[in-house]
């Protein structure tokens, strides 16, 4: 059933109507204008990252000759090769766990009946409402104590960097919103086919909500990749330190050298941009064909 939904042809959004040409012009104008606002500061970053020191501090818009060596210098000075692998490992573990745990909990909230649902959901949301600065000390205590009772050390190791982020109110809430939109009739018919909740979740709900799941993966990736304060708090040696630490230490060292700072910042974001570029087509088209082919 899910297969057939995925394989269905790309939709025709709207049958052609008159005035389309004008609409197109408006749409493109808005989009291009918006895109300009979104990326001009960004292009400026790219431009500065290719300048030399004189140009970078002189408030110039473009470099005379692009200094590609800035990237090489930033890469070496920030020891990115050391931290890249760490960040990839941390991110994969976190996102993998997040999908499983968030999907299970979101399914329970969206499609199952149990007492205390409203209360638990409010409780879940309220965990979002505490400023992060307040949570660092209690969470450090928790991580330290868990490290003392578990066979694996937590601090300065992967558990402290990944496990706290494997279940987030954000992820559960997001998935719940999407799971909830799936008609209950599908569950009724799945039941008649003899499917239990778990099988229904895996074979029907998840494929139908692949957009939401991919969104969760993407934001999990971004969050994990850019996390800074917590990783610095719970690591003491480079063994598990993520790329954001490398960038910070480098920014400290580069001090006034704006061009190198920019080059370093751009290097760290490249993997996420690539990931997004290659996944977005897939996940948006994947669910565009969502229909009730039950």
């Amino acid at each position, binding site marked *: 059933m899910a297969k057939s939904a995925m394989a269905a042809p790309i939709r025709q959004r709207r049958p052609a109507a008159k005035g389309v040409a004008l609409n197109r012009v408006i749409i493109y104008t808005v989009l291009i204008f918006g895109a300009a606002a979104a990326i001009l*500061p960004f292009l*400026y970053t790219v431009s500065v990252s290719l300048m030399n020191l004189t140009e970078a501090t002189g408030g110039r818009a473009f470099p005379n000759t692009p200094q590609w060596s800035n990237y090489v210098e930033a890469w070496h000075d920030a020891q990115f090769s050391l931290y890249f692998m760490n960040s990839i490992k941390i991110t994969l573990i976190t996102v993998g766990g997040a999908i499983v745990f968030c999907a299970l909990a979101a399914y329970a909230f969206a499609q199952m009946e149990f007492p205390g649902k409203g209360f638990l959901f409010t409780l879940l949301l309220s965990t979002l409402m505490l400023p992060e600065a307040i949570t660092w000390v209690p969470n450090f205590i928790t991580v330290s104590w868990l490290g003392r009772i578990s066979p694996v050390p937590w601090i300065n190791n992967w558990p402290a960097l990944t496990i706290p982020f494997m279940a987030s109110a954000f992820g559960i809430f997001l998935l719940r919103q999407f799971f909830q939109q799936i008609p209950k009739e599908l569950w009724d018919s799945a039941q008649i086919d003899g499917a239990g*909740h778990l099988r229904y979740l895996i074979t029907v709900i998840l494929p139908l909500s692949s957009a939401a799941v991919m969104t969760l993966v993407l934001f999990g990736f971004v969050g994990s990749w850019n996390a800074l304060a917590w990783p610095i708090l719970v690591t003491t040696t480079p063994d598990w330190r993520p790329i954001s630490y490398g960038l910070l230490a480098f920014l400290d060292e580069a001090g006034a050298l704006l061009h190198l700072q920019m080059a370093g910042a751009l290097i760290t974001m490249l993997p996420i941009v690539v990931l997004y570029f290659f996944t977005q087509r897939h996940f948006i088209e994947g669910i565009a064909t969502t229909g009730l082919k039950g």
Partner: protein
Amino acid sequence: MDGSLSPSAAVRTDLLRQMQAVPRWYRGRQSRRLREMLLAYSFLAPAFIIIGLFGLFPLAFAAYESTLKGLNKIVGSYDGLGNYVKAVDNLIYIIAFWLAAGLILYAGRTIARAFQERRQQQTEPLPWLAPGFVTAVGVALFAHFVYLLLPELLLIPSKLRGQINTQAAFRGLVVEAWWLPKVQIALWGAIALLALGVGGALFVNSRLPRARRNRIYFAPFVSAGITVTAGAALAWLTWTEINAAYSDALEKGEGLDLWSQIVTISAGFLLLLLAWWVWESAGDRPSNTAMALRLGSAAMLMVGGWTLIGELPRVIAAGDQDWWIGLMATVYYVLGTAPIQLGLSLILAVLLFQKIRGQSVFRVLYFLPYVAPFVGTAAVFRIIFSNRPSAPLNSMLTMLGADPLLWLSEPTGIFQMIAGSHVDLGPILAGPSLALVAIMIYGIWTFVGFDTVIFLAGLGAIPNELYEVSAIDGADGWAQFRHVTLPLLSPTIYFLSLYAVIGTFKAFNHIFVLRQAAALGTTDTASIVIFQAFKRDTRYGYASALAILLLIIILAITMINNRVASRRVFYG
């Protein structure tokens, strides 16, 4: 199946008929419900263990810390509501009192509803009352146990200092704390009460005639019991604190301010609440009565508002100025970013969802600002919004013939700047400082990409067939948007608006990076004030109290949002 309603209703009645036809299904219903319940809990368990440790524990920790004072001390000395009084002065008594009243009211409503159902549907809530409340007291005792054990555990690190900091010593101290008599008494008391409550519920269930087992009132009564207990505890705490503060004030010869303030402000709020309620109820009446009611409510509104305007500033002046200024900046920040961010991203998402050339490129472009590490983009925005006359934005202004501005270094409110220097708009009407506005622009720039991606996912979940059907019906683009896209997107809109409000209320990172001393603190939102109290000054208790106050504000807004949304959000 095209997702329209009638076939699904048919399926449902069909299923019902099937179920009624098979008696075993019917008899198994309660056990199926139980099975589903247990399965649901086991689905929730992994996520809730993690969230419990890293989301709920900090909450409990903050609530506990907020009653303590001390510098760089996790277990400081007990100070009651002292930290809250420092922050918002007497207002905290009013907040606590109304919170307690609200909790008790909520419990009362739950019970009243149960008995209403009894009259209307012939259910049997009465026997559930005792087991429900016994369980609730058990839960409360369990909470008491947690708050007895917590300080004992938190004291262990200080005992571990230095050379005795070994694994064995740690375990020994944990075990010692666990076996403290008061801890054990609370624990076993809680277990006994919980067992008694659950046992009683099972007994009630077995004794009820089968026909009346349809509705089990155990859960609602437990929750009512818990809210009553919490409300009573809060009311008691407030009462003792007020009395202590009052006798303190008398001793100092400061007189009777406290009570009169509490009464006046409460009355003001009550009038506002009443006015709102009357206004709402006017909608159901014939027009003349409605008119009179609305006039009455307007009068109440004015009186209530006037009372508050008379009394609140005095209370505010007595609290922590940095905190009030921070809250003001936060409100500006939320109002200035959340709606714009959502509106822009909705427009972008809808446009990006059309069949257009370069769709994927646009999608990537809009997402870039969110992905870029903020240390990098913040540096760029510091240059763009620099006070130098030759900085990018200022040279643009000069080109347009305007004077350069100070941007991130400008503490003056934007409305004040627009109005010019000869009118003094006062602190509130002057609006957010230009510096804060610059930070808002940065915030919007960053988060539009985030919202757009989620909107795109939401748009993708709308079945095409609906568009096709509505197109056949002759709906044009706008009508489709109004009647198909918006309702079906409402779960996503609800999610994003809630998330945006929560997120902007506690926005921190980019504000902290972009704030400059030259803005004279006008960019310091509540989360910055909390951060400084916690990290710079290590006033854990005070910072926690501020965080709890912020949480109460966000929670209240969330609940209002939920009330509004529950009428409008449409799930398939």
